[in-house]
């Protein structure tokens, strides 16, 4: 007899939840614990906020001449980041995190142009030396940031773990990034709601998702408000300035990691983002800078 179980938790700096149908509470607890452990492990390895993470170790060794060994999973993530770099015309760049020093969440003024220009030489995925076994950041001050990839990847991995444990009906949400384990027992999709980027209590789209994933990117999460102007947390690695063109993008794809990168790339392409979304062939919801909503979810 299947019952529904709902486990809210905190991970990757966001409110998360995993909901699924299982035949017993004990089983459900078991599955939840596996999921939580795995997500915690991913955070421990790839978070830039943790000094003991693999990512921080790679960043500390920048410019020292010491390489860092890679495991299969990290190599696969770097390959994925590489593909995103290629498909976005070098806009999706995991070395652009250094710009946070000037565009961090507590800035109250625009940074000086020289300061931004000074950081640009530290950015450039093509400069990173990496192979299947090791990675090395050649200049001191260079940093890797998996911000646009790991949370979405974690959602997919978590869905996979539930599936492996025999769960066939469930949904995972990690701070707005959703991955479906399987449809509701009657075959219907899970209800998904997307909110207005500027008015979080207003829903702009509602649909049912029986399989796949949803990920969103926008200037509503972490943004800077300077002199009344909202600046996105997404930074253009070539200019060093925040992108401006689209307010928010939500994408539906088979995997959350792909949905997330397509959304981020669309945001990074700013004014060209909408054309790219149309060309991708994936269902999407896009909010332009003038507030206009383009709904292609029932694609």
């Amino acid at each position, binding site marked *: 007899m299947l019952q529904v179980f709902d486990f809210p938790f905190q991970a990757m700096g966001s409110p998360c939840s995993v909901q699924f149908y299982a035949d017993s509470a004990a089983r459900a607890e078991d599955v939840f614990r596996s999921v939580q452990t795995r997500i915690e492990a991913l955070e421990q390895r790839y978070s830039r906020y943790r000094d003991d993470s693999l990512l921080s170790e790679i960043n500390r060794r920048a410019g020292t001449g010491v390489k860092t060994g890679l495991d299969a999973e990290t190599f696969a993530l770097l390959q994925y980041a590489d593909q995103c770099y290629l498909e976005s015309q070098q806009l999706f760049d995991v070395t652009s995190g250094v710009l946070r020093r000037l565009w961090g969440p507590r800035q109250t003024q625009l940074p000086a142009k020289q300061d931004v220009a000074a950081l640009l030489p530290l950015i450039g995925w093509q400069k990173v030396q990496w192979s299947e076994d090791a990675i090395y950041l050649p200049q001191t001050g260079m940093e890797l940031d998996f911000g646009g990839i790991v949370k979405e990847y974690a959602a997919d991995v978590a869905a*996979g773990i539930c599936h492996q444990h025999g769960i066939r009906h469930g949904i995972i949400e990690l701070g707005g990034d959703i991955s479906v384990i399987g449809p509701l027992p009657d075959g219907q999709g899970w209800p998904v709601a997307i909110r207005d980027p500027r008015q979080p209590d207003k829903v702009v789209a509602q649909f049912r998702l029986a399989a796949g994933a949803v990920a969103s990117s926008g200037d509503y999460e972490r943004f800077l408000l300077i002199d009344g102007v909202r600046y996105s947390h997404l930074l253009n690695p070539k200019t060093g300035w925040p992108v401006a063109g689209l307010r928010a993008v939500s994408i539906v794809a088979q995997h959350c990691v792909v949905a997330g990168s397509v959304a981020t790339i669309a945001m990074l392409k700013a004014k060209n983002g909408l054309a790219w979304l149309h060309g991708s*062939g994936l269902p999407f919801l896009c909010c332009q800078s003038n507030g206009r909503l383009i709904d292609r979810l029932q694609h």
Partner: protein
Amino acid sequence: MKTKKMTNAVKRLQCAALLLPGLSQTAVAGRVEETYNADFQYGHYSESNQRMEVDIFQGALSAPIGSAMTASVNLVRDMVSGASPVYNFKDANGQVRQFISGASPTSSCGKSICEQRDAISSGLTYFFDSASVNVGGGFSREHDYTSRYFNTNLSFDFNKKLTTVNFGASAAFDEIAPSPSTWNSRDSAFKAHKTSQQYLLGVTQIINKESLLQSNITFGYHSGFLSDPYKWVAFYDGNAFSDFQQDKRPEERFEWAWLNQYVRHFGQFNDAALHLDYRFSTNDWGINAHTFEASWHQPIIDDWQIIPRFRYYSQDKADFYQAVFSGQSEAYSSYSSDYRLAGFGAISAGLKLSKEVKSIGYAESLKFQTGVEYYDHSSNYQLGGNGSNNFSNFSYYLVTASFNLKF
């Protein structure tokens, strides 16, 4: 959620995502073609001296079934009309000439040969993570020839999918019921059979990110009625006719072939690709043949491509071939004067143009192609030949036009 059309960018991201551990569990198996494909082609074949003309209509459809299978079906209709060489004879000057079957006012097309061949074949492929299995079969029918055939292929990926090994086996069961005519003295009850088997062992190897090589070895065995029921052989005593018999070939043939295909990408030429093929084949009828083919696929602008191609072929004559024989037929166990068993070479050159239109209506892509090829058969082109069969030289041109729809 339907993802019917996805640009290549998204597809490549999906592929890169599937490499992430933890995602592959629920991912779809290896190489499944997610799209439906519909193809149609028209071809016109025309030989020199108005010998033979053929109109060919082909259609093919393939569709994904479930998450790990692809099914396909293929249809062909050939409409042949014309004449063909029946036997060789010595003219008044003692020179060997070909006798070509003449016009036939009573036939349906006014020529000596009016034929329609229809064939249907289908196949099913099942994909695993690093392997695939294919089974298929088909049926071909002409008024005097029926063929039923089956084939199977196994494919295994190794070495991080850089190497693929292929095993193939096929068998065909043919029934020949030649119609009585001026050139077939057998009665209408005559029916003969031919059985063919072919086995293939091949390797496809990715050499580096710009090139790959495929190498296949095949072994074939045919038995039964292998002669041509409408061809004759002339025997001479000096310049006088001494005997005249229907084509008689051995009842068995073993053959081997080794094919190598090399493909290389040239980024500096706008993503052009060079294709080079070489095949050596030999059989126990004494025919050794070399086939060399080269083509250059050049993308121009806006999804247009131009493809020039060149082919050279050379074969020796069969042990039991002679243009005309001397003496009596009883002295020979097998004899044939069929120009296809003689020593000769063939050079052909062609040009093809293709245009792809992406994202049209509900379809992912529509591709148009058209091409022309000119083929010249001459005894002078034979490698190491002595040009003694120039009486049977001919040429043909083949024009094709097709479209392919992916949706």
